[in-house]
């Protein structure tokens, strides 16, 4: 297994951007700009098409499937909003629930690992880390059976609870390191003043850990927002559909009405783009750290 700490520091370096302002500065700028422009153009073709087509009626698409046509049909978006709003709310409930519980229980566990020396702490911690090596595909089937045995299939709990378990592993690992690095004098001073461990955890450690909590929350958000397979096996009723589930139905349900389909895709992409716009630094940190965990 890889050194996860090394990976996280790589991610932090990636997120913090050009502090050292290093550069090759080779004098090849012009051809390189051209190269990047070509690559960038090709990269954006699918997304540009999505945007252009999302304003078309069926007739406009039949005549001109590539370039914009006028008038633009904004009413496609009213339709899209109706389709997407409920799944977005469902997904938000699941994500907020799962992320909140994950951060809470993992920060408690990480506090125990970082601040207590108790019998079995090494074994328990290694046990958590070794879970990172088990591929998710191996766990899919037995997790499904366990979820069924606990009567959680077909409802949001069946999503939230397994998500918490899966998210905890990396979160505990990262937070333990972070908590251990918090200066000891701070905690000792509070102990002398008679603060309980719970108070120290709740009043000192957690407030100091806001940046790492935000990063871990974003990692979890990106993973869960995009997850398809687990809702696919757990959720049965259409009113409980998450965004990923509803997205897949559009192309089948609306046949060749590509304007409506694309408007739905655009609308479905907006929530994450908005989060990115509001907290881009946190988002990039979460994205890069999330990309390099298993």
């Amino acid at each position, binding site marked *: *297994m890889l*050194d*996860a700490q090394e990976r996280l520091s790589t991610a932090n*370096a*990636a997120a913090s951007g*050009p502090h050292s302002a*290093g*550069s*090759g*500065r*080779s004098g090849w*700028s012009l051809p390189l700009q051209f190269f*990047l422009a070509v*690559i*960038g153009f*090709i*990269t*954006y073709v*699918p997304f540009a*098409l*999505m945007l252009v087509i999302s304003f078309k009626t069926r007739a406009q698409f039949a005549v001109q*499937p590539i370039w914009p046509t006028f008038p633009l049909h904004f009413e496609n978006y009213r339709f899209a909003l109706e389709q997407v709003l409920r799944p977005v709310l469902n997904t938000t409930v699941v994500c907020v629930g799962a992320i909140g519980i994950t951060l*809470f229980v993992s920060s*408690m566990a990480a506090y*125990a690992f970082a*601040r207590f*020396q*108790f*019998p079995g702490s090494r074994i328990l911690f290694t046990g958590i880390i070794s879970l990172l090596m*088990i591929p998710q*595909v*191996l*766990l*899919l*089937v*037995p997790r499904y*059976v366990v979820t069924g045995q*606990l009567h959680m299939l077909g409802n949001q709990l069946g999503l939230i609870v*397994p998500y*918490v378990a899966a998210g*905890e*592993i990396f979160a505990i690992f990262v937070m333990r*390191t972070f908590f*251990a690095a918090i200066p*000891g004098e701070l905690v*000792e001073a509070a*102990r002398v003043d008679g603060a309980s461990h719970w108070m120290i955890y709740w009043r000192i450690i957690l407030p100091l850990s806001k940046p790492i909590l935000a990063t871990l929350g974003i990692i979890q958000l990106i993973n869960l927002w*995009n997850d*398809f397979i687990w809702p696919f096996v757990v959720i049965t009723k259409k009113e409980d559909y998450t965004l*990923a589930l509803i*997205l*897949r139905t559009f192309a089948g349900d609306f046949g060749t009405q590509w304007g409506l389909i694309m408007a739905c895709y655009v609308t*479905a992409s907006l929530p*994450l*783009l908005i989060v990115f716009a509001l907290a881009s630094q946190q988002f990039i940190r979460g*994205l*890069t750290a999330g*990309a*390099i965990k*298993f």
Partner: protein
Amino acid sequence: MATQVPQVVSSRVQTAVTVKPIWQRIWQMRLAYAFLIPAFIFLILFEYWPAFLAMKEAFYDWDGFRINNFIGLANFRELWNDAVFRKSLVNILIIFLFYLTIPFLMPIIIAEAIFNLASERAQKFWRVFLLVPAIVPSLVTLLLWQYLYNPVDGFLNTLLVAWGQQPQLWLSSPDSALWAYMLIGFPWASGTSMLIYFAGLQNIPQDVIDASRLDGAGTWTRIRKIDLPLLMGQIRLFAILTVIETFQRYVSVLILTDGGPANATIVPGLHLFHKAFSGNRLGYASAIGLVMFAFILALTLINQVLLKNPDTESRTQAVV
């Protein structure tokens, strides 16, 4: 990493650790266990217990409900003769080898290209510009490619027809489906790996780069002799991630082709999924999962040996 000791341990606790018998120490530290219990309830139910089940049930005939009979190695024997599984292994190997070529190199090339731009503002612009598509939900991107490949209305066939060419079936023909699937994401320039490579390049001390220039090394020499060796850590990281991710990949196949047409795009993870959720053969599916686990583990180890990095080696071992 794992050997790191928490920095603060009150002196009272430390004396207790050395003197008292174990049950007394456990009782004294009961608060620590109380902090751990909530996290472990989740882990035991949805990580440890499923992991145990997956390994055990690979040797059982299991429907997840009533039938649960020990059948020894019968699942694995059947798997050995399973033509679909064999096909899925061939497919995943092709996909894996392909992903090690252009899709693997592209982020490095892009990072280098941006790194060699003269203006810092241009550097920042291109990094953000190429990152934004990665923030669109992955499923939307996948469905957009499904549209590009649509045989009737799709963009690619519209282009082909406009240029007077024959329209193609893309994902819908057994001959082209696997290639069409692998080309999804072209030109593989967007994403976080590019950012991580770029950060790696930025961590190269500027005086090293300046010195190489004074010594008369051109850009090309610098890339070969300085940049690439110093990026080995990241390259090794993404090589291992490519192994792990490619061999587990099946959700995108499920969405686009469901393994078809005629098993042209079947992959092991999807075969597992079909056996479990269409065939109700959960024991057999677990056996597939176990074999995949073994494959991934073996390839990760091979990768570690092939791309050995002396700097990080000792730390890596500490975690394992």
